[in-house]
């Protein structure tokens, strides 16, 4: 029973009127069935009607029912000429019976208006059936005794038994009729209707035979038929028609019995009619109580069976739907399976529309692509409906919407309400489709008529929605996977390099187009190491190639094994191959960051780059050589002086020796000294020439580990005479413990020579006393070696600082401007750095930083 607030006054009036009418009818019947002059009726339905009304209404509205009954009671009983006080007191006792009965039932039963479980039936029988009449009987008997002088216990007895019977027979009948209403009757099949009719006729017949044989006008031969004769019929009723049937049958029998008693029938020999009636009532009550229990048990079982059946149907739906998802191959079948799932759900729950709501980017519309609608429902043109922003926002929050009537949606859902009402939908149930904490949409169920969505229904829809959400999520992630796979494949095949993916053991599990071509023998890069087909073990291929003497393969093998065994986080190398012509390749190995391990191997042909590098190297060496020779030219004067000294010594000594030999006696001892000096001088001259040759020789490609201090000292001897000629003081501040460097001796000598000559020339124009050059060596940062040459010259002009190392930059009239450019190219080819800065007081400092040999070997 519903309580729409806005119409409560109207509802109250109706209820009061109905109760009043029922009460009046009850009074008419009850007043007719009395043993005059007794006040108490033998069948008094008004109390039971009141009880039924109270059971049907919540306790807060009970006053409405009582108020509806009051005027009728007053009118009827005062018209009998009874004193007002008595009438009022009787009303109170009548009300108390209904209140006690309905109250106890309310307390004990989980659904006071139903009798379909043992608990509910028990609560009704105990509360409304027994406790109400018995307890209120005490007050009633007292009132009747006080006003009418009738014996107290007689009254009590009469009233209690009749009212117990009335309560049991009338209340379920009324309550069930109101709650089930006409729909209950409509649901009866024709066979059931016929059965009920036959049963009624039998009951009336047997009732008359048993309870009022005289009234029937004839009697069955033999003894009077015992009361138990009706029991089979009552059983039949209980089994087939439940509590309502029992109640109806009881009411029939009570009416017959009461009427018969009133008209003098006596089913029990030797008893007064009133006593006989009590005996009858007691028997009927005693028979009916277990029958109520039987009916409730049957209902309970029937209900459990029905619930089981519905659960089975639901589980079948789940099983079928998930099976069809599993079986579906391809998008089309999957969509069909999805639609079938919607259809099954709609049919099971008997709704008019089942709709999959998309919640995508900007998804504010009802999306009608996935929907099912019942045959009986009107066509829903969902695509042309309005928007449902509120529903979608609730879905995004992951909250369901359970709405019996869309008109009760909150104000912020105005648009949604209009859209749904425009489709002719009254009740909606919307649950979010969430799989793996990701919202994939919503499931909307709707009916044209108002519908109370039971928690069970909501639970079932949520279960189905989980199933659908998983399917949607799975399909979406499959799509994503497929597109990401496609992207990876496209990227791989667009690469000009040869790429292969290896598993942990080195087996090739995937390759790109370039690799595939070479593996088939098509590509240009046939010299790349170990390119073989998918499935081959790349490690094994490399091992075979290395064993056959392929040096590139053995290097690749080592690097690959390191990466696959996680000893290295990557590997890169360059190798050359002469098959079929000389080509260079760069190989990289990158580990696959996944639990199964593996690596990605790629080969890129770098022949062009390598060739350019070799060309550049050669050009640089030629330029270096040229520059060195020209630097030597600048040193010619100094060198000539160096060579001239020993030659002069030799020449003069030789002439002195001739004179000694010409003398008499020849000074042989002197000549011996002279010859020793000549030998020394000639050796010295040879040394000078050797030194010069060393500077002239073209650089070889080999590098070695060099001592920077020794290197500086070699160069210093070369310029020593120059410094003397130019009257420049050169001081050395060398740290003999600096790390050694790896490089070309002559090239690095060239750099030092260049810096020294530059420094010596820089101080040419300053006064002789101030001409100073300081050469320093020391440790730089991170194991490098730092050499600086500081002069006391005019320093670098601001313009020169940026361009001094550029080719053809020169401040010298005779210079080429190549010296520092070449020095820089040499230093940088050694992984070092060269720079110049002005000294704070005067002059410039040129610095060279070279990596230590330990780092340089890496």
């Amino acid at each position, binding site marked *: 029973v519903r309580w729409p607030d806005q119409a409560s006054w109207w509802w109250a009036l109706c209820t009061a009127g109905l109760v009043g009418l029922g009460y009046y009818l009850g009074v008419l019947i009850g007043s007719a069935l009395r043993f005059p002059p007794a006040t108490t009726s033998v069948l008094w339905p008004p109390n039971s009607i009141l009880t039924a009304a109270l059971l049907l209404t919540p306790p807060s509205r009970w006053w409405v029912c009582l108020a509806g009954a009051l005027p009728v009671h007053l009118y009827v009983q005062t018209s009998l000429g009874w004193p007002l006080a008595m009438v009022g007191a009787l009303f109170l006792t009548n009300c108390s019976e209904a209140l006690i009965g309905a109250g106890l039932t309310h307390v004990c039963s989980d659904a006071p208006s139903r009798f379909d479980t043992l608990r509910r039936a028990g609560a009704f029988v105990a509360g409304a059936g027994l406790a109400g009449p018995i307890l209120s009987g005490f007050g009633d008997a007292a009132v009747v005794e006080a006003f009418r002088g009738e014996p107290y216990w007689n009254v009590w007895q009469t009233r209690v038994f009749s009212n117990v019977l009335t309560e049991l027979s009338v209340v379920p009948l009324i309550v069930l009729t109101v709650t089930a209403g006409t729909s209950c009757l409509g649901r009866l099949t024709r066979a059931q209707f016929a059965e009920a009719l036959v049963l009624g006729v039998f009951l009336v017949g047997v009732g008359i035979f048993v309870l009022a044989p005289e009234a029937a006008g004839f009697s069955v031969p033999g003894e009077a038929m015992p009361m138990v004769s009706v029991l089979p019929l009552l059983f039949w009723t209980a089994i087939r028609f439940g509590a309502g049937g029992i109640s109806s049958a009881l009411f029939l029998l009570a009416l017959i019995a009461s009427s018969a008693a009133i008209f003098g029938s006596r089913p029990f020999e030797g008893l007064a009619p009133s006593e006989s009636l009590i005996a009858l009532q007691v028997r009927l009550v005693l028979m009916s109580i277990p029958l109520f229990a039987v009916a409730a048990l049957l209902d309970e079982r029937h209900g459990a069976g029905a619930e089981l059946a519905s659960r089975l149907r639901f589980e079948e739906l789940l099983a079928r739907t998930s099976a069809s998802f599993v079986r579906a191959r391809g998008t089309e079948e999957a969509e069909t399976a999805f639609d079938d799932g919607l259809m099954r759900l709609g049919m099971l729950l008997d709704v008019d529309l089942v709709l999959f709501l998309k919640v995508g980017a900007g998804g504010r519309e009802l999306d009608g692509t996935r929907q099912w609608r019942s045959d009986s429902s009107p066509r829903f043109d969902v695509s042309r409906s309005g928007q449902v922003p509120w529903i979608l926002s609730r879905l995004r929050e992951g909250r369901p919407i359970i709405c019996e009537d869309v008109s009760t949606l909150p104000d912020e859902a105005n648009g949604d309400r209009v859209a749904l009402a425009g489709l002719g939908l009254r009740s909606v149930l919307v649950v979010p489709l969430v799989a793996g904490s990701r919202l994939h949409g919503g499931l909307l169920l709707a009916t044209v008529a108002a519908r109370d969505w039971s928690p069970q229904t909501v639970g079932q829809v949520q279960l189905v929605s989980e199933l659908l959400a998983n399917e949607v999520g799975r399909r979406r992630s499959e799509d994503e996977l497929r597109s990401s796979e496609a992207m990876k494949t496209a990227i791989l095949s667009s690469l000009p390099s040869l790429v292969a993916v290896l598993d942990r053991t080195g087996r090739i599990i995937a390759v790109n187009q370039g690799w595939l071509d070479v593996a088939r023998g098509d590509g240009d890069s046939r010299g790349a190491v170990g390119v073989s087909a998918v499935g081959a073990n790349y490690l094994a291929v490399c091992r075979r190639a290395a064993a056959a003497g392929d040096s590139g393969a053995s290097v690749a093998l080592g690097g690959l094994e390191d990466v696959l065994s996680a000893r290295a986080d990557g590997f890169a190398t360059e190798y050359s191959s002469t098959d079929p012509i000389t080509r260079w390749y760069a190989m990289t190995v990158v580990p696959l960051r996944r639990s199964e391990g593996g690596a990605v191997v790629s080969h890129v042909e770098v022949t062009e780059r390598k060739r350019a590098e070799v060309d550049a190297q050669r050009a640089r060496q030629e330029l270096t050589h040229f520059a060195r020779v020209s630097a030597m030219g600048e040193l010619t004067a100094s060198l000539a002086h160096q060579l001239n000294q020993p030659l002069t010594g030799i020449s003069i000594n030789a002439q002195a020796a001739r004179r*000694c030999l010409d003398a008499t006696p020849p000074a042989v001892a002197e000549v011996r000294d002279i010859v020793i000096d000549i030998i020394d001088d000639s050796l010295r001259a040879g040394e000078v020439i050797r030194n010069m040759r060393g500077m002239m020789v073209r650089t070889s490609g080999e590098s070695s580990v060099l001592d920077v201090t020794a290197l500086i000292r070699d160069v210093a001897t070369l310029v020593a005479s120059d410094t003397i000629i130019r009257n420049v003081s050169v001081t050395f501040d060398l740290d003999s413990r600096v790390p050694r460097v790896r490089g070309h001796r002559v090239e690095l000598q060239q750099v030092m020579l260049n810096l020294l000559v530059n420094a010596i020339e820089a101080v040419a124009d300053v006064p002789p006393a101030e001409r100073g050059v300081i050469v320093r060596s020391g440790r730089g940062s991170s194991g490098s070696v730092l050499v600086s040459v500081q002069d006391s010259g005019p320093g670098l002009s601001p313009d020169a600082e940026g361009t001094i190392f550029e080719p053809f930059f020169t401040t010298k009239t005779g210079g080429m401007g190549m010296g520092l450019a070449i020095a820089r190219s040499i230093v940088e080819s050694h992984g070092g750095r060269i720079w110049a800065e002005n000294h704070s007081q005067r002059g410039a400092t040129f610095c060279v930083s070279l990596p230590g040999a330990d780092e340089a070997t890496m």
Partner: protein
Amino acid sequence: VTATPTVYVIDDDLSVRRAIARLLRVAGHKVVTCDSADAFLALKTIPRPACLVVDVRMPNLTGFDLQQTLRLEGRNLPIVLITGHGHAAMAARAAATGALAFLVKPFPDGVLLDAVQTGLQMDQEEQSRSARTDDT
């Protein structure tokens, strides 16, 4: 009283210095060697007659520097300049500053000995002339 004529050899290069000194000794001269102009200037007394054989290129004071210093001090000593790489400009400068001879290494021994002999005679005459001047 005339002291033994002395030839001073001033050259920073040991082998050249030793060779020249030896040649002069073999030719009968008394020889004193100095490895720099400063070392020569530091000598307290220079017995006359004397002749100087000086290398032009030396650290600090060059041969020309020494010649100029002596002239400024008024010590008019005959000087034979020797050099590793002589060129016309240097020869002209040597002539202008009054050097006795300008020899480019290596040179024939006769040229040096003649020049030294000439120098010593010139200094001898110079000494006796100044002695006479002093007497008068």
